């Protein structure tokens, strides 16, 4: 449980959690004292030693301790809710990057059935940072695509922390064409700090790979729905997000550049203060993107973020995906490129003087 608390702004919750833990120890001792087990009790005394003052004032019967624990838990929920309701954009970025936050493969496991992964780009190699395959969403057969960041150190390195290479984008596009041929809707899950900036990626045409996806996704005659589940970093994110409907999880971010990248360039240095300012200015939160018309919906997260209740988050995503696909399937596939074009065509803000 303690590993959930890695974020600075969650300190008040950590304090409450500590009190609950201390009380639970006491409860065990009060209840366990009747049964015995002296060795374990000795250890517990050591651990809760710091709370000696509280203990002397605390009630001695189990019922009272339980009631106090319950009260603290209610308080914890309230404080957590309050904290997450007022996250700064930079804190949102931190939640979006939380090491325990569910990733593409987690959601595939929780939302879809019978996932059948397809690895081949037929060009260079399999990019583990881009997961692609057929799957079933309820009774609907779909193609699901998503960035994968990796959970273990080994997996993270193999996935370049969710930064895909050109072969990843090309694999995704190749299978999207297949989905069009098979008349399958496409679901994409976006979670990347950005496309990988490296020698091989440049040599193999990172820019071209993304550009082709933007062009060809726009004209696919099959429904496409996208959800930004964590990080929506620039062209690397957009490269699988030219969709009929786009949503963001409440604590994800989507922008032209990461706050650190932006701070390093425009503020000449990336530090806590400039990152905070950049995150604020980039209007990268789900709510901001909704207001700008860049996304169509914000999918709520459970109190305290997706990482606290992955299953519940998955249910929210599943519902949104199912609704959208149901709706889009009512359209003739050949009309989708036109409406998709119009969706992106109107984005932008400028003044125009008519001559």
């Amino acid at each position, binding site marked *: 449980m303690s590993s959930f608390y890695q974020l600075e702004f969650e300190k008040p919750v950590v304090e409450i959690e500590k009190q609950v833990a201390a009380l639970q120890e006491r409860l065990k001792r009060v209840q366990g004292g009747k049964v015995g087990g002296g060795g374990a009790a000795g250890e517990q005394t050591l651990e809760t030693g710091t709370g000696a003052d509280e203990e002397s004032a605390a009630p001695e019967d189990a019922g009272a301790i339980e009631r106090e624990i319950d009260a603290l838990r209610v308080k914890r929920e309230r404080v957590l809710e309050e904290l997450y309701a007022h996250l700064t954009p930079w804190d949102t970025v931190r939640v979006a990057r939380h090491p325990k936050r569910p990733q593409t493969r987690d959601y595939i496991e929780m939302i879809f059935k019978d996932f059948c992964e397809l690895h081949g780009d037929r060009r260079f190699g399999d990019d583990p940072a881009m997961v692609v395959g057929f799957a079933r969403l309820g009774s609907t057969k779909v193609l699901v695509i998503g960035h994968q960041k990796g959970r273990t150190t080994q997996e993270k390195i193999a996935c370049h922390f969710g930064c895909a290479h050109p072969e990843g984008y090309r694999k995704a596009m190749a299978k999207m064409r297949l989905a069009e041929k098979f008349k399958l809707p496409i679901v994409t899950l976006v979670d990347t700090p950005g496309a990988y900036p490296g020698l091989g990626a*440049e040599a193999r045409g990172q820019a071209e790979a993304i550009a082709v996806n933007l062009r060809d996704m726009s*004209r696919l005659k099959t429904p496409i729905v996208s959800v930004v589940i964590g990080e929506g970093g620039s062209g690397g994110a957009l490269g699988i997000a030219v969709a009929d409907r786009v949503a963001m999880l409440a604590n994800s971010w989507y922008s032209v*550049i990461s706050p650190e990248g932006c701070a390093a360039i425009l503020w000449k240095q990336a530090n806590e203060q400039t990152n905070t300012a950049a995150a604020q*200015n980039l209007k990268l939160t789900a709510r901001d993107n909704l207001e700008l018309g*860049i996304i169509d919906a914000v999918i709520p997260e459970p109190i305290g973020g997706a990482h606290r209740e992955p299953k519940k988050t998955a249910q929210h995503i599943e519902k949104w995906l199912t609704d959208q696909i149901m709706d889009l399937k009512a359209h003739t596939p050949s009309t989708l*490129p036109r409406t998709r074009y119009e969706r992106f065509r109107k*984005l*932008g803000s400028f*003044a125009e*003087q008519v001559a």
Partner: protein
Amino acid sequence: MTNAVSSKAKTWNDHSSARKTSVPEGLWLRCDGCEQMIYRKQMEANLHCCPECNHHYRIAGAERVKQLADSGSFEAMFTGLSPTDPLKFKDLKGYKERLLAEQIKTGATDAVIAGSCFIKGRSAMLCVLDLSFMMGSMGSVVGEAVTRSIETATERNLPLIIVSGSGGARMQESGLSLMQMAKTSAALARLDDAGGLFISVLTDPTTGGVTASFAMLGDVILAEPKALIGFAGPRVIQQTIRQELPEGFQRSEYLLKGGMVDRVVPRNELRSEIARMIDYSGR
């Protein structure tokens, strides 16, 4: 993706602080390419290339149009477009102030010039990103003008030529800049479906969101010699991989060898090469 902006902006500023071309004032100058002393007027008359070593200096949008279009044939379009500050972006300087300073410096409203013209007698739609304005970065105005150029070329069945020179998507319009990548690329899908011709000309530098959208989608891609062309800027790559980049990495000739562009074309041959491509396409 826009990380290339600052490193290149520095290079740009090294040459010029407040003028349209990258060449310092004065009758004579030392060439960046061969370090010879060259006569400024001679260099300018040579399409802003060194008469000794043919080093290609960066040029502003207006100069590019002048060089490519048949004399007097260019008719500017979409000139009424001007940028707003939709996000109320403020870094060390407000975006509004930045825009105003750039507009005063260049006399342009944003980093794009578009219009119809003739190139060696062939009717064409020409769109040029203007490096002299915020490093040719793409915000809503650039995205809109590029998209309209593509749409016009599609409607009128004109060959489309886009000359790119850009640091990438404009950070100050954040998500809206990002969406211009999708918008322009989607418009190119329609041009392609209609059987249109798109010649993409890449100049020094073309990076970030511009490269990762319309610039790399040409039916034919031409690049000026030694132009820096890439997705990520060299500095970002260096920071990521923590080793020296190979000589010539991300330059036109490197991309040609890697199969990413079709031809490296010196500036003095650009007009005739474009005309030749139009002829081959049968437009």
